[in-house]
């Protein structure tokens, strides 16, 4: 029993730590003027939220967060920033009008999300029975993969007729085709234009 209690203490400690890091660096993105520092803070903020995922036992989502957001997107972002940033854009100063506007929009979104979150009954009071750290051996990946190809392992015994028919194959295919179109479009936009004159290159 003591073991469970102490584990909860560490769990909560790390949760608060990662949450503070995430929020702190997100604020850092807001208040920093230098665009590369903004990108750096964004990386740290996203990496801390990956830490939150790991803490919750969702290792696959955490690694995905690191891979896609922290690794891929931000390398691209920094690449783009370094290629495109001219003197005018290197240090950004937000005018007061934009502050007001973005505060209104962001505040509205926050209010909406908070209202939605607190309406969900399970979230209103913490249930202490459920705070033991999730096993890291949870079989999340296999289930995710199965769901993506159309089999929901958790719904296999729903009813005989639609057993395993409730997966995410269709949305998955739609998203893949969408991404493919985006890729083809990007390749089309970025390709070397046909040489009209030989000296143009």
């Amino acid at each position, binding site marked *: 029993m003591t*073991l469970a209690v102490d584990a909860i203490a560490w769990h909560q400690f790390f949760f608060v730590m990662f949450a503070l890091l995430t929020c702190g660096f997100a604020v850092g993105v807001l208040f920093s003027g230098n665009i590369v520092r903004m990108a750096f803070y964004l990386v740290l903020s996203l990496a801390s939220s990956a830490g939150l995922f790991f803490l919750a036992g969702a290792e*696959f989502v955490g*690694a995905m967060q690191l891979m896609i957001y922290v690794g891929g997107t931000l*390398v691209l972002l*920094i*690449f783009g920033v370094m290629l495109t940033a001219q003197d005018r854009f290197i240090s950004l100063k937000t005018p007061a009008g934009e502050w007001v506007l973005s505060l209104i929009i962001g505040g509205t979104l926050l209010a909406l999300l908070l209202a939605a979150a607190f309406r969900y009954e399970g979230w209103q009071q913490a249930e202490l029975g459920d705070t033991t750290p999730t096993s890291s051996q949870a079989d999340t*990946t296999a*289930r995710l993969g199965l769901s993506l190809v159309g089999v929901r392992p958790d719904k296999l*015994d729903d009813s005989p007729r639609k057993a395993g028919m409730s997966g995410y194959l269709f949305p998955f295919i739609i998203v893949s085709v969408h991404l493919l179109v985006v890729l083809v479009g990007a390749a089309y936009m970025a390709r070397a234009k046909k040489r009209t004159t030989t000296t143009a290159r």
Partner: protein
Amino acid sequence: MQTTLVDLLTSAGLPDPLAHVIRALVPCVLIIHLVAVGALVFIWLERKVSGRIQDRLGPTRVGGRFGWLQTLADGIKLIAKEDITPGEADAMLFRIAPYVSFAASFAAWLAMPFAVGWSGLDMNVAVFFVLAVLGLEVFGVILAGYASGSKWSLFGAMREAAQVVSYEVPLGLCVVIPVFICGTMNLTTIGEMQRGFATNWLIFHDPFTFCVFWVYITCGVASVNRAPFDLAEAESELVAGFHTEYSGLRWSFFFMAEYGSMLLVSALAVILFLGAWHGPIPIFSIGLGWTDAGGILGYLASLAGCANLILKSSLGVIVMIWVRWTLPRLRIDQVMTTCLKYCVPLASFCFLGALAWQAWIPNVTPASLPAPFGIDRAAIRESWVTRAGGPHATVSDAQLTPQTASPVPTTLATQSVPDRNIPVAGSTAPIGREETP
């Protein structure tokens, strides 16, 4: 190991939270030592190997005949050097960049198993985690290049960014192949599935895995920025590339990160393709029942397995050193051509080929023999259905239930399934099986 250590400490009278902290610190300290001492050894090795390749002797004086204290002397020199930040630099990012690189290289090691149960963090998605964290090392390089405020560094960083987008795609594709053959992303399980002689290694699983291993090595060398892919550094063109402005200890952090991830990339290759800890020292059960035995014998087996893994990984590092001093540096367009025009199609072809092999000739290789935990590859692949679906599971119930029971019935059960035991396979596992009862 995890529970025993915590239990041991708590029974010794330590408060439980403290025991957990100590348990967490042990792998961290060990891994830091692996990365740091590994860097010392490999830098010395690099000097010696490059010396031999260029018909020189390499270091000979410091510390005796082989100059084996040379790196330590270098390290002391580096500590004594002044830590300089250029005036043009973005000071905070400049200072932090080496630590980003080093931390990424170090953190990826946390998920690497050294033997069964010998890992900092036994992760379900270890392969994916290692790749994701390894990709972050690049971030430190790009940050260093940008923050230095020097054109050489910036050029290095630009090249690095272009290189990243080229090699990450084929690298990911290569890693996917052992993952789907084994049906798991857990590195410990992937390693244990290659138990036995070299014929059980995934590199010899089918012709396609053999091909894809070399693609992996190519992309792996690219991912650690070693020649012929060291464009970010390119000392003949860019002074020293991204670390031009660095000196002293910060500079050496970049090198520790580089050698740490070299070892990491080859350790990953060893686990994915070259039989993990089942190496030159035989640790599978030949009569002794090494790994299955608990206590001192099991510990010895794990120790031997750890030695196997590190030995094979070091050989991989030596190959990287050899490649570096043999091949000239590629241009950035050649890097992109190599990675995107050759490695990606090759890896994709091998991917499809290995899939087809799995579909049509699944049980020809020795690898599908009764395996470590009493589960063979197909059983592990299909176990999610049983576990997740409960009573309505469709696949491989019959295979799984007798096998998970206990080690000895396991072998009997699998032997009774005739299509899993094919003559080709007979070479390895029966040795263990004849003598264990």
